[in-house]
Structures are given as structure tokens and as C-alpha cells.
């Protein structure tokens, strides 16, 4: 447990607290329980997707297709729902998750079996998945009045005062915490990203680990397809366009190393929350949306500088007293 909060996580916590409190000092309503819960609820989809992306980045890959995957699943589900309003929604959600999983598996297989760099594979599938939405929908929208009530109501209904959308992210966080700490497959993903050669020597199939990471990322994108479309009550070709960059940003801010092998669930969640708070706080204090983008961008650059300094090689440890007296 003591490793849960290494310096990066602690720093992010403090930053988030300071931001929240200082905005709260200007706008009283900001600190109300209801508003804080709604900020979390707003950030839930980002958290879920960032966790999937985290696994992919840890294996030294990247998944640019998450937002396109989300949009395609969302569109398919919305179309089914508008045509067959009586089709049970839970089954529909399951179907969406499976559809996302398939798309993730396609990415994973291309990386694993054909050895194509992940950035190229997902750049390609990103366009393909978006293209398929257009083919399916002919560019038309599925609007709120075409969706069934249950379909739209599920993420909004509450359990112990918290929306089910938020619960979805809380459960995902819990599952990921377990997966990255207590599941063999999860630890193998870290090992494969940390040193592919050593992983191979220890009998870990690095390509398989990458495949699993992509599959999970796809599964979560599929789940988020439903969450997004039902929450915003609309599905169209450009749903969540560019959202993959926010997801990757959340990972980078959270200390997931783009070089692979390093990253924690806590860091990832805090990275997403950080962006969530910025997105919600800046409008409250009257900052224009253009500045919001510039500020998130600046934070990302700072985060990358911070992690590259932390990862900078300080040299091999040869002197006997080197560990005890590093600055002699």
C-alpha cells in the first residue's frame, strides 16, 4: 500500500485539491457535494478509457482508436435501440462491450501477429471505425426521441446517491487495481513493457500481453460507447472526435511512462480527474474554452518534462556507498 502514493500521485492529489479549493473560494457552489459528484460523473468516461489506455501504453504501444471505437459501438447500439426499443438494455450493453472487444482484438492481432507498430495500426483502424459509422448511419443522427426511456435512464439512475455512470468507473477502477496488482496476466503486462527481452527470457509472450492490453482497451471503449451515447442522448459520426487525445493526456499527466513499463492505477485516475477538474472549473471562473485547451496542453508538457527528469538516468550504481550518499 505504501507504494500507492509515490511522489507523482501525491503531487497530483495536492494540485487537484488546491485547484478545487481555490475555485471554490471564488464560486461557493463549486464545493457542494452535488457539484463535486457531478464533476466526478463528468470525468467517469475519461477515467474508464484512460485505464484501458494505460495498459496499452505500459506495453510500449498506443491506442489511437479508442474514441472511434466508442463512437462506432455507440452508433450501433443507438440504432438497434431505436429500431427495436424492446430489446433489453443490459443485453445491449453487453453486446456493445463485446463489439468494442472485437475491435480491440483486431488492433491487438495486427500488432501481435503482423508486428506492425501500434501507432500505425490504430491510426488506420481509427479511420476505418469512423468510416464504418458513416456507412451504417449514412451520416444521419440518432436523436433522443428515437431512443427508449430505459436506454437513456440507466446511467442517470442513482445508487446510494451516486449515479450509475460514476459506479461504472468506480467498479472499473477496483477491477483494474486488482488486475494490475494481483493477477498474473496484469503483472506480465508490466514485465513485458519494462523489458521485452527479459520478459521473453522468462517465458512471457510479449505480443500476447500487447494483445490483451488492446483487447481490454477495446472492451472498455465499447462499454463507454453505450455510456456516452445514453448520457448525451445523441449518436452521430463525430461523437467523441479527438477524445483519444484527452485519454492519452490523462495517462501522461498521471505518470504512465510513454516508454512503457511504468504506471499505476492511482496515477491514471488522478491524471483523468485533474483534466476533469480543469474542464469543469475554468468555465466557472469565466475562462474561455480556448484558454482551457491551452492550459490542459501546458499541463501535459509540464507533466512530460517532470517525468523525463524523473526517468533521467543517474548512472549505474557502482560505488559501494552510492546508494547511501548519492550527492557526494
Amino acid at each position, binding site marked *: 500500500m505504501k507504494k500507492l502514493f509515490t511522489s507523482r500521485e501525491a503531487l497530483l492529489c495536492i494540485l487537484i485539491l488546491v485547484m478545487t479549493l481555490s475555485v471554490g473560494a471564488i464560486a461557493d457552489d463549486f464545493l457542494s457535494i452535488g457539484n463535486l459528484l457531478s464533476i466526478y460523473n463528468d470525468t467517469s468516461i475519461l477515467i474508464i478509457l484512460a485505464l484501458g489506455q494505460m495498459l496499452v501504453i505500459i506495453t510500449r504501444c498506443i491506442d489511437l482508436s479508442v474514441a472511434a471505437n466508442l463512437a462506432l459501438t455507440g452508433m450501433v447500439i443507438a440504432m438497434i435501440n431505436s429500431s427495436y426499443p424492446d430489446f433489453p438494455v443490459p443485453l445491449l450493453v453487453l453486446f456493445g462491450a463485446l463489439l468494442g472487444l472485437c475491435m480491440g482484438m483486431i488492433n491487438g492481432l495486427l500488432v501481435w501477429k503482423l508486428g506492425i507498430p501500434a501507432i500505425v495500426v490504430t491510426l488506420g483502424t481509427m479511420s476505418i471505425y469512423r468510416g464504418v459509422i458513416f456507412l451504417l448511419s449514412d451520416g444521419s443522427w440518432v436523436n433522443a426521441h428515437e431512443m427508449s426511456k430505459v436506454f437513456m435512464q440507466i446511467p442517470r439512475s442513482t445508487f446510494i446517491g451516486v449515479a450509475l455512470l460514476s459506479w461504472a468507473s468506480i467498479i472499473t477502477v477496483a477491477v483494474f487495481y*486488482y488486475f494490475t*496488482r*494481483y*493477477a*498474473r496476466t496484469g*503483472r*506480465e503486462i*508490466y*514485465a513485458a513493457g*519494462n*523489458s521485452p*527481452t*527479459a*520478459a*521473453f*527470457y*522468462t*517465458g*512471457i*509472450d510479449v505480443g500476447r500481453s500487447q494483445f490483451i492490453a488492446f483487447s481490454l482497451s477495446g472492451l472498455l471503449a465499447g462499454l463507454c460507447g453505450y455510456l456516452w451515447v445514453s448520457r448525451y442522448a445523441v449518436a452521430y459520426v463525430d461523437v467523441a472526435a479527438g477524445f483519444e487525445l484527452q485519454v492519452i493526456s490523462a495517462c501522461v499527466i498521471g505518470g504512465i511512462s510513454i516508454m512503457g*513499463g*511504468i504506471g499505476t492505477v492511482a496515477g491514471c485516475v488522478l491524471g483523468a480527474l485533474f483534466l476533469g477538474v480543469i474542464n469543469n472549473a475554468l468555465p466557472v471562473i469565466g475562462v474561455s474554452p480556448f484558454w482551457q485547451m491551452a492550459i490542459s496542453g501546458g499541463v501535459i508538457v509540464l507533466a512530460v518534462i517532470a517525468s523525463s527528469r524523473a526517468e533521467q538516468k*543517474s*548512472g*549505474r*550504481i*557502482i*560505488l*559501494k556507498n*552510492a*546508494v547511501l550518499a*548519492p*550527492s*557526494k
Partner: protein
Amino acid sequence: MSQTPFYSLRGISKAFPGVKALDEVQLDLYPGEVMALIGENGAGKSTLVKTMTGIYQPDSGELKLAGESIHLATPDAARKLGITAIHQETVLFDELSVTENIFTGHHLTRGPLKMLDWRAMRSQCVKILADIEAQIDPDILLKHLSIGQRHMVAIARALSFDAKVVILDEPTAALSIYETQELYKIVEKLKSAGCAIMFISHKFDEVFAIADRYTVFRDGCFVDQGKIIDITQAQLVTMMVGRTVDQVYPKENIPLGSNVLKVANFSHPTEFNDLSFELRAGEILGFYGLVGAGRTELMQAIYGVSKITQGSIEVEGVSVIIHSPADAIKAGIVYVPEERQSQGVVLDLPIDQNITLPQLSKINKNGLLNQHSEYALADEYASRLRVKAPNWHEPVGNLSGGNQQKVVIAKWLATQPKVIILDEPTKGIDISSKAAVHSFMSELVKQGLAVIMVSSELPEVMGMSDRIIVMSEGLQVCEFNRADFNAEKIVSAASGGLNEKTIH
């Protein structure tokens, strides 16, 4: 002692593009016995280890374990059969804890969910580390450990399996005397537990201390095998090199000139501390030490690759400040790195472009590339070093290791340096290229250059150097003049046997 081998190999061949690494070799390991595999660098030992552990697939031949033919498709398959190896370069995970490094690939689990049991893994890890008397924190990340400690973790990892066959590929290369003694104890324990052990080492005293049998390889071929009590060291060496041992080094007595290089109080936060030495024109100064003693790190600092906390450099009596390799080259210091393929040459570029790379701005004064003068310069130095290639437009990647090394040296000579640092100049190259590099070193000093040679091969250091500085754990432990060279003293100094700084 059993008479039937437990793990045996017959007719194993393995070829890589351009090289036949193993040619119809055979090998037998017996339960409860240590078999020493002996051979020079490039004899095919490491390839054999990788073949025996499922990392490489042999092109032909048969592997038999306990009388049954086996096929090792993956390293995992070998591990499941109880075959484990400690590789020469430790292959571990920097960002994972010691405990996890030991258990990755065979994590302990509990419950129906196969939840990882960290508490059990940690306590087993503590037990194994205590068994091998290694004082290492099980929770620390591997990146914080020294090279010797990493080796101990690798050994602990091998012991964490239920191993029947244990392969140790030069396990003592980076260990201190104390750690080596611990390793011997572990080997004895494994023997009495009935393990079949294969031990690879360059050091004959070790071989005679712990091995029961030997097998000799030369240039990828099987030469001989037998019991260690039936053989002498001289016989082994003769078989290993295929000629008599008193190899002649082309060392010439050259009157030393004035001081060229003076390094004073060089210190780095973690790699070395307070190193000082001087170097004269016409001198070859050898740096000897265990793998990971900090020699390469020191040379890289002198060359401006890494930053020092204190220390100064004078070239020909003038103080110079070196922040980057470009500064070093300007000051007349050049460095031929150990990692030839990644740091020494650009493999995809042709020979001539590799040679002219450091001085493109010097040759091409007006900012446009002048291919004729570039080629002329490359031609001069490549011919002088007798690089074997169809022409100088050949990509360096197509050359043999020895010829690649000649290209690196040619590149630096073309800059007309004052000091040339050679880091393991003959590592991984064949015997004839080795001799060429050695005689070339003699030629260099004859022309008034000063040479620093880092080498882990004692005969080479003793054969070529005028003076030897021995380093151990980042410190300068002692210095020998050529008249006082003594193999035993040098080796014991390098292994930490001498603690005080002494000058012989």
C-alpha cells in the same frame, strides 16, 4: 556419481546469417556433477546456453532429458522441465521489485481466482536471499541495485525454481571474492541436491575448484570432454585455443614522450570516485577490473558522455573543459566504445561515410558535401587499417566484427587525435583480427599517440600495456608498472582482495 547423463545434446547445429555458431556439437550433463564448458569468446558457448534453454531453436540435432527426446519451443517449456540458466548479461526488470523479479513467470497464487500471493512470494524471497547470504531488500526496485547485487538476484531467481538442470554462464564475472565464495557454496548445495550443473568460466582456477567434468569447444565445434582430474590446465588451454599458449603480443619498447593527458580527481555520484592518472606519449595504459568495476563509465566521463561532479583534465599541459564528445574530439581525445554496433558505427551507412562522420564540417568547408575529398580521406585510413571489404561503399553492417572495429578505429585516427581510448577493443572478434588490432596499437604508439586500453582479458592487458591501473567497485585500487606485472596480484586486486590504494 552417476554414469548416465541426465541432459545430453547430440549433433546440435545452429547458424546465423554469415556465421555458423554451432557445428554438430555434443554435450552431457550428469546429475550431482558440475560440468565446465570451456572455450574462448566466440566459441559458441552462449549460443549453446540459449539453445539448451529454449531461447534459440537448433537447426539440427537432438536434446535428451533423462533419456527422453525433448523439444524446447519456448523458454517457458525449458523452465517447466526444470532447466534454468543464469545468463551472462543479467536479463531482469529494472522497474520491478526484487521479489517480483524473482517470481515473474512463476508467480505464487492462492485461492480459486489465482490471486497473486505477495506475502508468500516475499517471505520465500527473503528465505532464498538469506540462503545465498545476499543482503538485499526484497522490496527495493531492481534499478537501485549494483551489478553484483543484480547477479545475486539472478541467482536467487534460478534457485526459486525446482531446478534439475542449472546453467551458470560466467556467473562470477561481476562478483567480488566474497560473493564468489558464496556462489561456490550454492553450487555445492545444488550438487548434493542432485542437480546437473553446467558452469561456464574463463578462469581456470574456478574450473579446477568446482568442476567434475569438462567439455571444450572451439569456433563452434566440439573438441573434447572428460573428467577434470585427468587433465591439466595447460592441456585445457591448448585445446581451447588450438595452439600453444605462449601467445606473443606485438609489444614494442618505445621511449615514452612527454605527458599528454592528466586526469585529476575524477568523481561521479554513483559510478566512480577520485580517479587520477597521467598518460605519456607512446604509452599504452591498461585498465583492468571485473565487469562493472566502473572502467567504461570512467572513460565515457573523460569523453564527455556523462557528467562528473568534480575533476579536471589537462591535455599537453593545457586545462580543457569537456562537456560533450565534440569537446573531447576537439581536445584530441577519441573513444572507441565497447558497444561497437550501437555506439561505434552507423551500420546502415557505407564505410567511407562512417569514417568521415566526425569531421564533416572540416572536410566540407563551404557547407556542401565534397564526396571526392571525403572518399580520399576514408580511402587513406581504411587502407591503412587493411579493412577487408569489396569497396568503401559497402554498408558497415555487412562487415565482420573485426572489420567493423577497424572502421571505428580508422574513423578516429582520421581526426588525428592525441589520445585514443580503446574500450574492450578485441571483444567478440576473431583471433586474426585480434592480432591485427594489437599490432596496430603498437604502430599507433610508435607514432607518438597515447593509448588507453580497457580490457577484461588479462593476457591482453598484460601483453600490451606499459602500465596497468586496476579498478574495483568504482575505485582505483592499485597501479602496476610493466616490470612488476603479476597475474595473481592483478586479479586479486580486481576482485577486491586489496583494499588500500597501493603502487607497486
